[in-house]
């Protein structure tokens, strides 16, 4: 094996097993790799021979040796975003669009794919998760595809699309009358008693590694070059740390030229334990009670918050947060400028980007990547009332021309030219 679990704090090795905590010092475990053994297998040339999905980076993922992927997860578009850039004072802006990640339209597909590969290896027949929605969808879908039973635990008041998008896959959906943090705590207790593969509890060290593929892809899609800045939405705080780990690994194995990358974190003001700590120059999280429409980011006690703060501070980055109204405006802005319909978390990211450019914390000419992690079709309820259905008109050219004159007073001249 080229990887194993190791305690982040006391360095004790735990081999490979469904476990996320060091019994010796109670600290989190992380997958560590034998980079010397991996080095010959992780080159630009070898990667280029792989299929256009996240499995092209398998050499740096904790996967069983006989693992055969059954889904083309990841390798989502990295889009230049010139029109959005113009609106927010940027000049060299990219959008990493995981709103179209397969199979369930969020970046969670990446982490679940890795976790389920290990669940199979460990001989588990049931997988589970606590979720704010996207993880629920992805775990349920991939469990169905891989033949696992699945138990999904969510806060009872989640968006209807995310509930339906879980049930459709035949998952057992357990609605908990409480916040995500309470759901998560309950799942820790359940995982303690049952031999289930909780992707984000006892499989979490493996799961979290899947997030690195976002970083690998950004670098490869920029022509094997690191950006100057990455802006990442933060819920539990894991993704931002894993993109950093991906960049560090690419530097270590010589795939990119070393350069400093600043990491910026985005949260909703109604649930901003990480950005609040960064702005106050504190190292530790003070948990919050979440109150925001950005449900997928509504984690008041982020497990990886401490590490996210460290990653941001060490890189010279910053964190920001935006109001719910700004979230909605930013969803609309991204859609209208770049044709990307993101969910609330994406609105958070775009809104925070605008603030960071305004504050000169991100400079216009710097190469900056915004991580869009989920799809707007899952959170259409936050747009209720933003758009009215017009009265229907008859299928007649004259009626249409009348309609056009009535609705487009200002631009009526243009229609005459046609």
């Amino acid at each position: 094996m080229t990887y194993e679990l190791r305690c982040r704090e006391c360095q004790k090795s735990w081999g490979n097993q469904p476990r996320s905590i060091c019994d010796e010092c109670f600290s989190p475990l992380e997958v560590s790799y034998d980079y010397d053994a991996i080095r010959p297998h992780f080159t630009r040339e070898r990667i280029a021979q792989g299929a256009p999905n996240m499995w092209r980076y398998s050499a740096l993922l904790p996967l069983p040796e006989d693992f055969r992927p059954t889904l083309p997860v990841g390798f989502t578009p990295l889009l230049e975003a010139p029109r959005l850039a113009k609106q927010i004072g940027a000049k060299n802006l990219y959008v990493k669009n995981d709103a179209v990640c397969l199979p369930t339209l969020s970046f969670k597909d990446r982490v679940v794919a890795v976790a389920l590969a290990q669940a199979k290896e460990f001989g588990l027949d049931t997988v589970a998760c606590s979720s704010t929605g996207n993880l629920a969808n992805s775990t349920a879908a991939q469990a169905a595809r891989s033949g696992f039973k699945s138990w999904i635990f969510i806060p009872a008041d989640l968006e209807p699309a995310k509930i339906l998008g879980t049930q459709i896959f035949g998952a057992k959906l357990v609605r908990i009358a409480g916040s995500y943090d309470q759901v998560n705590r309950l799942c820790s207790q359940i995982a303690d008693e049952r031999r289930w593969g909780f992707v984000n509890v006892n499989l979490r060290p493996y799961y979290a590694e899947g997030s690195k593929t976002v970083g690998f892809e950004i670098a490869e899609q920029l022509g094997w070059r690191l950006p100057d800045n990455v802006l990442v939405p933060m819920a539990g705080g894991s993704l931002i740390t894993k993109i950093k780990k991906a960049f560090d690994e690419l530097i270590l194995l010589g795939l990119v030229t070393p350069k400093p990358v600043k990491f910026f974190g985005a949260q909703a003001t109604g649930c901003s334990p990480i950005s609040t700590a960064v702005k106050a120059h504190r190292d530790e999280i003070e948990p919050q009670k979440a109150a925001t429409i950005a449900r997928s980011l509504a984690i008041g006690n982020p497990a990886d918050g401490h590490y996210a703060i460290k990653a941001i501070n060490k890189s010279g980055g910053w964190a920001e947060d935006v109001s719910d109204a700004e979230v909605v405006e930013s969803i609309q802005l991204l859609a209208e400028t770049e044709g990307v319909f993101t969910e609330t978390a994406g609105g958070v990211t775009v809104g925070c980007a605008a603030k960071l450019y305004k504050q000169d914390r991100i400079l216009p000419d710097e190469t900056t990547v915004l991580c869009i992690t989920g799809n707007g079709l899952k959170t259409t309820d936050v747009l209720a009332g933003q758009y009215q259905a017009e009265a229907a008109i008859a299928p007649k050219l004259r009626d249409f021309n009348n309609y056009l004159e009535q609705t487009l007073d200002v631009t009526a001249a243009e229609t005459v030219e046609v």
Partner: protein
Amino acid sequence: MSITVQIPTALRRLTTGKAQIECVAANLNELFSALDSQFPDLKPHLRDEAGEIRRFLNVYVNEEDIRFLGGTDYAFQDGDEVLLVPSIAGGAE
């Protein structure tokens, strides 16, 4: 105050296998001291060298995070149920 403490599996080898412990304590510091004296091996798992609650240990009272109840200032009520739950992080620096 008489309270019940639920011990997660990971720590039960330090509590002679006990999953539940009855304690008398007025607040969290007293509770940890009571646990320390009953199970000396448990002590370094609850507090760090500086005496602070370990970063990755969450303490709940009747399902609520104790930090929302005042943390170490919270005065236990008779019959409170205390949960010790490890925080599940998986990030990297």
